[in-house]
Structures are given as structure tokens and as C-alpha cells.
């Protein structure tokens, strides 16, 4: 069962307006697309972060599904506990076995949440983990994370006169997860709603642990006008910066080939977090970022051809 058009999707949503996420928030779009794709009630476990904090300011909640937030680093561990409980309780006829989705940002996944996620996948729990990637610890004020790209400015990797932006490179998290051989894994972008929403369905249907890494731009943190969120999410793919692919049954598959990529400058220019890279004295950093993007693309293409 896959989604072919928007018209066929139900109008009623499990997520309501009135949440406090910024105007133009990428993760907010991700939440909506996720729950519309699911099309049925799920139990969601959210890690601490932008989505969690902005959607549940007591006594207001935007959620119309059973929703749990425990802490920052353990969305996958909490989801494991719920999945096991529902497995047992439904066996005894005491509870309905809903699908469990763990929803966390790049902070709660790439870095502090990596251990719990790795453990949950190794144990084979039947759940879907979605990482919405806005490439920094946005909720606490735009500090760098393992997902922040090389050269980007964040409050803990400022574009200073001696060190202009983040020195390190973006962690290849999806491939770390794929190395665990999950039931399903994929990357996605909120600009490609059909691709993402069908991946959500595949992730929910998969028997065992599933993981989706979603590119969800942040107008506030990346400093671009709030109406550009989808455009930037599209450019990330069109410049090969964020390849879209899937992993199933030991095989990588490219979701969208980009034979003629747009220049990386198209992606960089609208975002003030990269502005210093357009300065000629930082030319080498921009080069390094381009090389990193190409290397990653070539690596993914090679894996998809095996």
C-alpha cells in the first residue's frame, strides 16, 4: 500500500495546530507528514528537543495520539520498553498492539542517543525510529552536533577569525545504523513528501527495527527566510548534499539519482550559517565541504550498485 496522490489522504490529522514551533519549522512539517503517512493512531515516544518542548507546554498538547516524553538520550530505550509491554499485554488480551514510533532530533540520535538506538536495533524491537535532522542542537540554542556539517556556524562552532565554523564533518549516522542490519532504513527529505511518506509506511510495515533519517531545515538556526524551508530541503538533495536512499534485505537502493547536480553554492548561499564560506579566505573550507559531499555521494552510489 503506497501513497500516490495527496487527494487520497484523509483530511483529519492526529496532530493539531497551536503548537509553538517557529514559523516555517522543518521538523513541524516532518511531524505532519509522518502522521499523515501512518494514517492510523500510533504511540509516539519523543526525545527532548524542539518538537517535544514546543508541542507539549503544560496544559496544552498538540498530540491526538498517545504520546510520551521521558528524556533526551533514551527515546529508543523507552520505545523498547513500550514495544515489549504491548507485545506481552496484547498476548494476554489486555492491550491493543499499536505501532511505536520513536521521534528524535539529530541531537537525541547522532550523539547522546546513539547508544540507546544501537541497543534497541541490536535487540530487534519492532518499532520505527525517525530522526529529524536540523543539523544542530537547536532547542538549546543552535549548538553544534555530530550532524552539523563541516564549516557550518553554530553557537559552539562560531565562524571566528581563527577557527571559521565547525572543523569536523557530519557523522555518517544512517550508515552506522545500516551496519546493524535493521529491517529497514532510509534517508528522506521533507521536500520530497511522496518519497518520505512512502518510506514511513515501509518503516511501519517492516517486521523489526526501522530507521529513517529525515532532512528537516531550521530557518532560525540556519538563518534563512522562513518561506525557504522546502526549497532548501530540495536543494540539499539536488546538490547531492543529502542523498536519498533506502536499505532493505542487505541491499542499498538509490531513491533519486542526481546525474547533474546543482552547484553546492546554490544550497549554501541562502543560509547565513554558511555565509563566511563565501569569503575568499575561507575558500579551502568550502572546497573541503564539496569534496566531502562528493565522496559521500560516490560512496552511496557505489553501495547502491552492489
Amino acid at each position: 500500500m503506497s501513497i500516490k496522490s495527496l487527494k487520497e489522504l484523509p483530511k483529519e490529522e492526529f496532530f493539531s495546530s497551536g503548537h509553538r514551533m517557529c514559523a516555517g519549522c522543518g521538523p513541524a512539517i516532518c511531524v505532519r507528514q509522518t502522521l499523515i503517512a501512518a494514517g492510523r493512531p500510533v504511540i509516539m515516544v519523543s526525545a527532548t528537543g524542539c518538537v517535544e518542548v514546543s508541542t507539549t507546554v503544560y496544559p496544552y498538547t498538540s498530540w491526538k495520539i498517545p504520546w510520551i516524553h521521558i528524556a533526551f538520550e533514551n527515546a529508543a530505550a523507552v520505545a523498547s520498553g513500550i514495544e515489549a509491554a504491548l507485545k506481552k499485554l496484547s498476548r494476554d488480551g489486555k492491550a491493543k498492539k499499536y505501532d511505536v514510533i520513536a521521534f528524535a532530533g539529530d541531537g537525541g540520535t547522532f550523539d547522546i542517543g546513539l547508544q540507546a538506538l544501537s541497543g534497541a536495533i541490536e535487540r530487534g524491537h519492532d518499532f520505527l525510529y525517525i530522526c529529524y535532522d536540523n543539523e544542530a542542537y537547536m532547542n538549546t540554542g543552535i549548538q553544534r552536533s555530530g550532524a552539523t556539517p563541516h564549516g557550518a556556524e553554530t553557537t559552539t562552532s562560531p565562524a571566528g577569525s581563527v577557527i571559521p565554523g565547525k572543523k569536523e564533518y557530519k557523522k555518517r549516522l544512517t550508515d552506522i545504523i545500516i551496519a546493524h542490519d535493521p529491517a529497514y532504513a532510509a534517508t528522506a527529505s521533507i521536500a520530497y513528501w511522496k518519497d518520505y511518506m512512502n518510506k514511513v509506511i515501509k518503516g511501519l510495515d517492516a517486521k523489526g527495527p526501522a530507521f529513517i533519517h529525515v532532512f528537516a531545515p531550521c530557518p532560525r538556526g540556519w538563518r534563512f527566510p522562513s518561506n525557504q524551508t522546502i526549497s532548501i530541503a530540495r536543494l540539499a538533495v539536488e546538490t547531492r548534499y543529502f542523498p536519498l536512499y533506502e536499505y532493505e534485505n542487505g541491499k542499498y537502493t538509490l531513491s533519486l539519482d542526481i546525474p547533474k547536480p546543482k552547484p553546492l553554492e546554490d544550497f549554501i548561499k541562502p543560509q547565513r550559517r554558511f555565509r563566511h564560506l563565501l569569503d575568499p579566505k575561507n575558500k579551502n573550507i568550502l572546497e573541503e565541504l564539496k569534496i566531502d559531499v562528493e565522496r559521500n555521494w560516490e560512496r552511496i552510489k557505489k553501495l547502491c550498485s552492489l
Partner: protein
Amino acid sequence: MSKLKSWKELPIGGVILEAGSSLEYKTGSWRSQRPIINREKCIGCLFCWIYCPDSAIIRAEDGKVDVNYDYCKGCGICAAECPVHVIIMKEE
């Protein structure tokens, strides 16, 4: 908003029992510009609906769309993504 509740009146454990209660919080007051849709030219593709972060695009009976100004924060994504450019952003 009504008077804040005492500890005796709250559900146990800080749980929120009323699903979707954030609807009481009208984020429409946040915006500094509002989208205006030219309904006649709207092709009902629903891209604005799927890209709105706030579920502020209403899918009308006729297959076209309207804006829910109670919650629209004026981000402008709908106008930017409309393939036939029939949404314009106007200063409040």
C-alpha cells in the same frame, strides 16, 4: 485564559488528558504577514497543505484550499511552494 488550577485539581503525574488542547492557543497572533489565496486559480494540488508546518491550510469541500488564520504564522512556505503562484503574502 481561565484561572490556573491548584495541585488538587490536576491529573496525576503531570499528564495531559485532553488531546489536541493546543487548539486553545491561537498562534495566528504571531504573524506579520498573511497568505492570500486566489481561489479561482487554485488547482487543488494540495502542496501548500502538505508543506504547512501548522496545519493552517484547510482542504475545502470543492478540493481547493483556504487558510485557517487562527493558527497561520505567516511563514510563507505555501506561497513559495505553490506551483501556479496563486498565493501572495500580504503585510498584516
